[in-house]
């Protein structure tokens, strides 16, 4: 195929202990939307970093327009017409849109011209942007626009998009797809990385499926079902979630117009959040990242104190209690960030078990650490939650993401909480571990506790939740039984319509 835009031939890249890419080959035609499909850890990110010049392959070669192509650094890739939009944006919060765009360009025009160009290009592709606004003040969707416009200003021939929709509302996804189709029609090729099968079916012309760093299949997504592609990706049969009965008990946790301003100058303030969480209930809270998820977790874990009367557990006002007291009365939490928030990276598993469990599990006596009890409890977490580690004295950061997440969830679940709040329970976790974590949380609710799950993964929330609500700009939609909802309604909720399907709205 001499007319291919980019040809990839036998790329391999190894890191200590893992072969991230193993002899990967495929090609992309001009104007084609090509999906790169695979689970977390399948090697998608490493592959595109090699195309973008951030990582050097151990072996293999590439050709762009039939000419040898092996960028040493991103600026070389950009000069040759390859642009990339990252999953975690490479933006600078304290700088404005124009400054951010300049930084990503090789030959940036003068300031005034650039501002004009940003307005033109962003309008032309349906992605309106104000060049003078600070990134910190933009929503996640708008930040992605900055990244895309930055690429478009350099007239790319190939645009790499790494998991672009994981942070977008369904409506924003539609807008993005329109932009991408328009680009494709103009002859720009797009390498689209995702593990979301419906999107790939809707958008992409071809797909290359990666598993454990190898190309395991190629297909035309339109001719496949979501299920058949999932099987290519996972390499086995998909488990269907179990149906279950829902008979909630008495109210355990009650939030009454919880309002709290964020410490972070670029954070989201919580506004009038009201929840009644009952025994046996799993409440799923969806929404796009940066809409108050972190703040809600901090407000519930006790890391932030709120005004009296706003938070009650079993009828007792706990608004003024700190984390330790909240744990003592039965409200536990597992934050999103495993390393650095839920666990201390350089501390051992035993110390990390002690970290949140010393109150309820009585792992100390008048301040002195009961080391045997602490080690026993750590061992219990490791055994019951199948945490793979050489030993309990290993440091937290030495565990893989999935194992550490199992440890963190296990640590909280085994303390038999009255209410457990979890933010992003399975983010970046492999499928098997994710299934185990979801099951553990369901089991906890079945035992009579209440569970509040905050997540950006709608599929996960639909699978786990009895009731469902959405956080949008710090406000919570009215919780509704999950079984009654459809995708359109969820999309409206995520866009900020708080009373979808509620009669008095």
């Amino acid at each position, binding site marked *: 195929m001499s007319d291919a835009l980019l040809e990839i031939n036998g790329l391999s890249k190894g890191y200590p202990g893992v072969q991230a890419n193993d002899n990967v080959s495929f090609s992309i035609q001009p104007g084609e939307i090509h999906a790169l499909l695979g689970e977390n850890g399948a090697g998608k990110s490493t592959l595109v*970093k090699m195309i973008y*010049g*951030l*990582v050097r392959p151990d072996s293999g070669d590439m050709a762009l327009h039939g000419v040898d192509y092996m960028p040493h*650094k*991103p*600026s070389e890739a*950009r000069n040759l017409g390859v642009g990339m939009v*990252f999953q975690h*944006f*490479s*933006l*600078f*919060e*304290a*700088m404005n849109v124009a*400054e951010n765009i*300049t*930084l*990503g360009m090789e030959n*940036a025009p003068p300031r005034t011209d650039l501002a004009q160009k940003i307005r033109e290009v962003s309008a032309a592709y349906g992605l309106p942007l104000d060049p003078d606004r600070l990134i910190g003040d933009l929503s996640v969707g708008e930040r992605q626009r900055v990244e895309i416009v930055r690429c478009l200003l350099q007239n790319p021939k190939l645009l790499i998009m790494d998991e672009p929709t994981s942070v977008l509302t369904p409506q924003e996804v539609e807008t993005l797809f329109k932009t991408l189709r328009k680009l494709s029609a103009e002859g720009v090729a797009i390498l689209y990385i995702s593990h979301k099968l419906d999107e790939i079916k809707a958008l992409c012309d071809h797909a290359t499926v990666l598993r454990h760093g190898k190309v395991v299949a190629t297909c035309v997504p339109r001719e496949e079902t979501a299920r058949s592609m999932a099987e290519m990706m996972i390499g086995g049969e998909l488990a269907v979630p179990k149906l279950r009965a829902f008979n909630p008990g008495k109210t355990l946790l009650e939030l009454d117009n919880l309002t709290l301003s964020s*410490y972070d*100058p670029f954070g989201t303030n919580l506004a009038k959040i009201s929840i009644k969480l009952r025994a046996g209930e799993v409440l799923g809270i969806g929404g796009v990242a940066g809409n108050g998820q972190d703040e809600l977790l901090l407000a519930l874990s006790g890391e932030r104190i709120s005004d009296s009367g706003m938070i009650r557990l079993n009828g007792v006002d706990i608004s003024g209690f700190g984390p330790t007291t909240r744990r003592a009365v039965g409200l536990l939490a597992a934050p999103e960030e495993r390393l650095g928030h839920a666990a201390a990276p350089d501390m051992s598993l035993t110390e990390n078990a002690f970290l949140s469990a010393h109150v309820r599990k009585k792992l100390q006596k008048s301040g002195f650490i009961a080391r045997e009890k602490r080690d026993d409890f750590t061992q219990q977490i490791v055994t019951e939650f199948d945490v793979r580690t050489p030993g309990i004295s290993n440091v937290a950061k030495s565990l893989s993401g999935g194992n550490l997440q199992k440890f963190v969830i296990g640590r909280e679940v085994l303390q038999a909480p009255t209410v457990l709040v979890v933010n992003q329970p399975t983010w970046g976790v492999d499928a098997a571990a994710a299934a185990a974590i979801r099951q553990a949380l369901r089991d906890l609710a079945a035992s009579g506790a209440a569970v509040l799950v905050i997540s950006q993964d709608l599929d996960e929330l639909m699978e786990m939740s009895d009731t469902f609500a959405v956080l949008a700009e710090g406000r919570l939609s009215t919780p509704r039984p999950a079984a009654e909802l459809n995708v359109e309604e969820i999309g409206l909720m995520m866009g900020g319509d708080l009373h979808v399907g509620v009669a008095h709205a």
Partner: protein
Amino acid sequence: MDFSSLNPVALAVSLIVAATPILLAAVGELVVEKSGVLNLGVEGMMIIGAIAGFAVSVDSASPWLGLLAAMLAGAGLALIFGFLTQVLLSNQVATGLALTLFGLGLAALLGQSYTGMKPPSSPRLDIPVLSDLPVLGELLFRHDFMVYGSIALVFGVWYFLNRSRAGLVLRAVGENHDAAHSLGYNVVLIRMGAIAFGGACAGLGGAYLSLIRVPQWSEGMTAGAGWIALAIVVFASWKPWRLILGAYLFGGVTILQLNLQALGIGISAAYLSMTPYLITIIVLVIMSADRRRASMNAPASLGKIFHASH
């Protein structure tokens, strides 16, 4: 008490002279911090600059060579810090402290044979005609060239940071080094450059002390000036122009208390000597108190260790 001997114009002039070494060191440290690096070794780099500048000036009889040597010595010491923190990923606070302790010792060692000597005098820059104006002439146009140089340097740094692309890149590195790296900027190299620049400025500030302000070499003569420069960067909220305000405020307090001591107003000289340090603390407290604003102004990656994962 007789305050009539306090001539406000003369006070203002000596204020500027007292402020200049701190201003020089602070403007260098500002650039370092804007790139996301906290170098607490300013005091050490200043004193190395003071002795290097002094020694080379005396030996070569050229103040120019002295100033050049001071810049090179400051930058050289700074690059040790840079190598440790940027390549060997050592803790910036500890390494900065080590730099100060090491610099103070090394300067004392090098300066053994220079105590009590007089340096060659540095050229003054009296601006013709203007310098003959009453009051204003003395106040604005009759300084040594380093005073004008320090103001020009502040302007240059402001222009660099806010108007040039290289400055934008440097700020980006200080704001979010991972993002800057993923855009393909060489974080370590950019920071090394900033660190060397900061060292050169601190060295120059030290040389100003030993060659122009005092002018003599004595052990430990910086007496905390490097630390005050660090405080003034915080005071200035990392904005170049405000450094001038901070440095001159400090210079003013220093000169005022020195003059009060000379007047003998009945307060022990020791208490008056405390005031510059106390004022620095108060200023630091006032500027840091608004946490929200402080976190907006400080470079977001300040003091964090950067290690490229790929």
